[in-house]
């Protein structure tokens, strides 16, 4: 019958556009909670692993059982570098000195990775120097974002590891959600903290795949941990993943619960408002399945539009966060949208249950009552 051809669900939903907008934006805002949190999480993973992912090293050697940089102390005897160089397949090996400390300028202070690297090769240095030059003795590279936050620039002084350094240049891409990165020369670092290395960066010969080199190194240096670049980056990402997992689970659950209550409310109120119309349809011969289809289609419309609204809002909020707080990166990933959309469908199905029950019990005689 004609019930099938008239888009009743869509008309029901949009007959009062203001109500439809309130519902769609409300449900969309609940999904924003999930998407933004996912985006901050993905952005943090990008930031935390950036140094490793952009390193020219194919393989990293660390203290035994040390697999990360963040919140990690690693110490290798200086002689390790010579041991590494003798291993088959090694093109170059370079020591990297590393610790976590604070960089201070006046009263301002930021938590920072301090990296001591060989400035002659720059292999352990920053991805890019945005301004100025690599550090010499008594000098440091400070990340652009951190320099803004500390109110310093090239030529100014900062305190790192208790010593004053003059800023020789500004590096890019080294500030993340938790800390920033400063670079000093390997010799300055050794002068303050001693000659040990935290990591050895290793380049593979052209004919040696990095996994093969990693195997060679692991066999030759059993008292160390040897990881390929990807594995090291994954291990680093796992730190963020492990730390954020519980917070993410709690917030995601709350976001979806709010969405569930909101979709339920929307469908329920719309079903009550249209009870008489449903009665007319039933009086005209529409069966329960047709009426149920209307409710389900309304749920589908609400969710589809809410997801679109949520993605648009999340991208806009993410851009605003990135602009206002440059140490934050919000990366709204397609996989996150897909995951949220799929979960939203489940939520919508659950939310439709109560209105469905109401519709199935509509009495055709309702059509003939005064509203």
């Amino acid at each position, binding site marked *: 019958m004609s019930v099938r051809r008239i888009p009743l669900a869509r008309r029901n939903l949009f007959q*009062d556009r*203001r109500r439809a907008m*309130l519902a769609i934006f*409300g449900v969309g*805002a*609940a999904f924003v*909670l999930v998407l933004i949190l996912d985006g*901050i999480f993905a952005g*943090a993973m990008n930031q935390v692993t950036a140094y490793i992912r952009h390193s020219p090293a194919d393989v990293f050697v660390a*203290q*035994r*059982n*040390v*697999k*990360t940089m*963040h*919140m990690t*102390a690693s*110490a290798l005897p200086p002689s390790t570098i010579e041991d590494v160089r003798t291993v088959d397949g090694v093109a170059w090996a370079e020591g990297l000195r590393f*610790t*976590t*400390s*604070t960089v*201070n300028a006046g009263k301002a*202070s930021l*938590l920072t990775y301090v990296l001591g690297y060989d400035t002659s090769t720059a292999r352990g240095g920053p991805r890019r120097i945005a301004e100025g030059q690599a550090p010499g003795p008594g000098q440091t590279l400070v990340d652009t974002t951190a320099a803004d936050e500390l109110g310093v620039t090239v030529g100014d002084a900062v*305190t*790192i*590891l*208790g*010593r004053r350094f003059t800023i020789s240049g500004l590096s890019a891409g080294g500030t993340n*959600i*938790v*800390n920033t990165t400063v670079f000093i020369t390997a010799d300055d670092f050794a002068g303050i*903290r*001693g000659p040990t290395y935290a990591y050895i960066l290793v380049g593979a010969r052209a004919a040696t795949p990095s996994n093969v080199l990693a195997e060679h190194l692991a066999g030759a240096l059993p008292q160390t941990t040897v990881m390929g670049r990807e594995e090291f980056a994954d291990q680093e990402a*796992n*730190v963020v993943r*492990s*730390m954020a*997992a519980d917070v993410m689970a*709690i*917030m995601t659950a*709350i976001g979806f*619960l*709010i969405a569930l*209550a*909101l979709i339920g*409310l*929307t469908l329920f*109120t719309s079903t*009550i*408002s249209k009870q*008489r119309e449903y009665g007319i349809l039933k009086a005209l011969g529409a069966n329960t399945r047709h009426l149920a289809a209307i409710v389900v289609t309304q749920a589908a419309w609400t969710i589809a539009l809410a997801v679109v609204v949520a993605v648009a809002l999340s991208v806009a*909020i993410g851009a605003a*966060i990135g602009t206002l*707080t440059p140490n*934050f990166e919000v990366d709204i990933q397609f996989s996150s949208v897909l995951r949220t959309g799929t979960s939203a469908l489940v939520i919508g199905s659950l939310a439709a249950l109560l209105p469905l029950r109401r519709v199935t019990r509509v009495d055709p005689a309702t059509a003939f009552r*005064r*509203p």
Partner: protein
Amino acid sequence: MHGTVPLARRNQLAEPRRLAASAIAVGLAIMLILLLDGLGAGITRSVTAYEDNVGADLYVAQAGTRNFFGAVSLIPRDTLETVRAQPDVDWAARIRTFLAIIELHDRKIPTAIVGWVPGRRGGPWVIMEGRAPRSDNEVAIGRAVADRHGFNVGDSIAIMGRRFRIVGTSADTFMLSFVFMTHRATDSLLGAPDTTSFILIGTARPGAVRAELAASGLAVLDRDELARRDLAVMTRAYKVPMGVMRAVAFVIGILVVALSVYTAMMDRRREYGILKAMGATRRNLLSMALRQTVIVAGAGLVAGGVLFMAGRALIMNLRPQFTVVLTVDATARAVAAALLMAAIAALLPAHQLARLEPASAFRGG
């Protein structure tokens, strides 16, 4: 007439299921605001757990050190003797601290390792089960991590390539579990036997001791400044996401209240038309819209309080590393948020009512 008939309340209570669904949705938004506030307050309390409980008045560290967590201070071990030589120092003890990631059941667990000299100050201030470590192969770990990963006293655990025997469970801090071990054990883990991180000082004259020690080129920090800076560092990562979540929850609350009251009013458009035909002014109708949004927001506030208590109990039971604290400030903020939600949400229904023609009273459905 409209002054004596509680139309706003009757309108909302006419469809209790709608009011209940609205209250739950608003309540969830308020619960989220309360939980975020509660987590924030919990963070504030737990981040400074060490400074709050260890009883030191001053901390001597490497020059330039400003934090207890995160910044790795390294000073010569014999600094302790220099400090003890000061006449106003009642007691002094050395501790080494550093952050470390340990791997348990394929998860990376952030820990704050504290090495101290057994029998001296600086070690665990509370032992929940077992005892404090005495020898270099023993540790006391945070109870939350022990519970989560099924560790019992007597089990062994790998930390930075070495195995330790768990002899006790102790405290945790925000997102971190304390691992207490002997100072000698940390010397060996870091390969730095003649160094330490901090000298803790107990003194009745902190100002005088600070002045005396500062002259020697060491950083001397008092408990409050260390706690304040630790809080700033540890909460830096959470401030923005929590702020955004709070703002979104607030917007959700407004939208739900507006949706609920708008729907209720539009469904009774004819009745409101009658009121207008009988002489109700715009102000009467606006006040009626506001009273309805206050009813929904108030119901949401109550639901939010109940949901918060349930959510807090659930979170702290399932994830004991999170402390969720309900403060008077947070409660006042939630009430203010609910009232503001009601005020803003009233705008749309009030606008619609103001535009309503009295003639609508005489139209059919």
